[in-house]
């Protein structure tokens, strides 16, 4: 009796596990199958044509990569600084630490659409307008949706991930190294930057990878902060709007004038988004393993 119960339970856990695999297989398989038919060099290098029923998606790929890079430039250094404060300087019983800690944890749970609204209200209407008023009076440059503000909004969204990953890696660096460095007459700043941080590069890169994966996939934060339905030219200035793969998928799905013609394009776009996220991840992982080898030399 006992053994039968055991077996049933094992089968149940196994079935649930296989189910996950199956679902992932169906999703990726379906997209790869339908998406590869329209996928061509032209598709990834050309702009959309004839009301999105033909042509390619290059502006959206370009915009997404641009967005992710700008976002990383903001989120990673900022997140690393916060993580250093948490792991190296803050005393765990201090009120400042407890409150900021709670803020970071809660920030991780805020729905992404709220970040989008925050970006619109804070970055565009407050910061952007203030910049325009003081530096470019009478012009509307930064006080409107742009790739800069979309990136900043996305950076705020991915910040908790970066902070938490980097902090954990910093904490995993053995205390003995800090002691050795301080005993040699190094300052705490020197200890952090010359001994602790070099050993935490893999964590910094992991944080960046997680941020990139999240940033490339999220649509809600860029909806009101800079993503455009269609643009005739590529963004060249931080104050330009941009096209975004995720947003483009939404556009193709809901705004099409000809569903039958759009469908294969939609599949291919989704496929490209998956590949792009995958490539961005691989790149970051390669850099990480490089750094790991370099750091131990």
């Amino acid at each position, binding site marked *: 009796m006992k053994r039968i119960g055991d077996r049933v339970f094992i089968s149940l856990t196994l079935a649930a596990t296989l189910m996950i695999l199956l679902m992932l297989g169906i999703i990726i398989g379906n997209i790869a199958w339908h998406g590869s038919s329209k996928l061509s060099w032209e598709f990834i290098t050309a702009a959309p044509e004839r009301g999105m029923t033909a042509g390619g998606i290059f502006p959206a790929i370009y915009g997404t990569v641009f967005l992710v890079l700008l976002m990383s430039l903001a989120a990673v250094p900022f997140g690393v600084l916060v993580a250093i404060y948490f792991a190296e300087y803050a005393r765990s019983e201090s009120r400042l630490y407890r409150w900021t800690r709670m803020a970071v944890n809660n920030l991780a749970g805020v729905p992404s659409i709220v970040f989008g609204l925050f970006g619109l209200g804070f970055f565009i209407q407050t910061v952007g307008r203030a910049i325009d008023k003081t530096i470019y009076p009478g012009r509307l440059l930064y006080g409107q949706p742009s790739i800069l503000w979309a990136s900043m909004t996305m950076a705020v969204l991915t910040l908790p991930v970066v902070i938490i990953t980097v902090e954990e890696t910093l904490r995993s660096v053995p205390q003995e190294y800090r*002691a050795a460095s*301080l*005993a*040699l007459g190094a300052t705490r700043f020197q200890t952090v930057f*010359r001994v602790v941080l070099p050993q935490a590069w893999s964590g910094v890169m992991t944080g960046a990878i997680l941020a990139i994966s999240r940033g490339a996939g999220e649509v809600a934060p860029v909806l009101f902060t800079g993503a455009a339905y269609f643009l005739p030219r590529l963004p060249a200035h931080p104050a330009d709007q941009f096209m975004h793969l995720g947003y483009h998928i939404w556009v193709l799905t809901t705004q099409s004038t000809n569903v039958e013609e759009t469908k294969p394009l939609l599949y291919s776009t989704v496929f490209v988004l998956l590949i792009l996220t995958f490539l961005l991840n691989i790149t970051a992982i390669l850099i990480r393993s490089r750094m790991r080898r370099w750091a131990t030399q």
Partner: protein
Amino acid sequence: MGDAVKIDVSHANFFYGSTQALHDVSVGIRPRSVTALIGPSGCGKSTFLRSLNRMNDLIPGARLEGRIELDGQDVYADSMDVILLRRRVGMIFQRSNPFPMSIYNNVAYGPRVNGLTKKRIELDEIVETTLRAAALWNEVSDRLHRSAMSLSGGQQQRLCIARALAVEPEVLLMDEPASALDPISTAKIEELIYDLKKTYTIVIVTHNMQQAARVSDETGFFLTGRMVEFSETKRLFTAPQNRETEDYITGRFG
């Protein structure tokens, strides 16, 4: 030997929060000598050692009452620059802890962070001199740019000594430097300590009484946070004045 005192500790009481780890410790440590600190685990000898270069500062709630002087300067005065203090009073830890960098960079770390020199030629010279002083040069001179992690445990500990010497300290604090090493490596470290005392003032914490007897000029015996006895090593081991010291060195407890 004269009356000169390098480190003068008077009535030191040390607290971790509300727990008192040292009770009224007073001792004078002579320059260019080896002072051994012995005693059972938790007796306060490591706490004492770490209070000499203020490594205990890093522990929240740690504080010292009483006075510790280095060459007559109050170590715990507000005007004391802890960074400079630690440069003058180096430390070797129980577990060898070379940085995960090359052998060269390990030794050059101290001079670099202290801004002693940036010139490659001068650094090269410091690295060679200190590695020689730590009796490691012959074993590593052909692979200075390999990772320090590729060295054996004993070599790593000697590298840590070289690293500490590179900032030209006056005092070396050693916290059970050989406790994790095999007998041959231990013998090398002891030989090294013997050589180093010509230049440096050395304070060594050890669990190993034979080691204390072999390497030190003077020995202090700690028990439950008190320095029970302090005298010339030979005398402490052959004719202890205190009953508890005698019990400990004859192996009746500990």
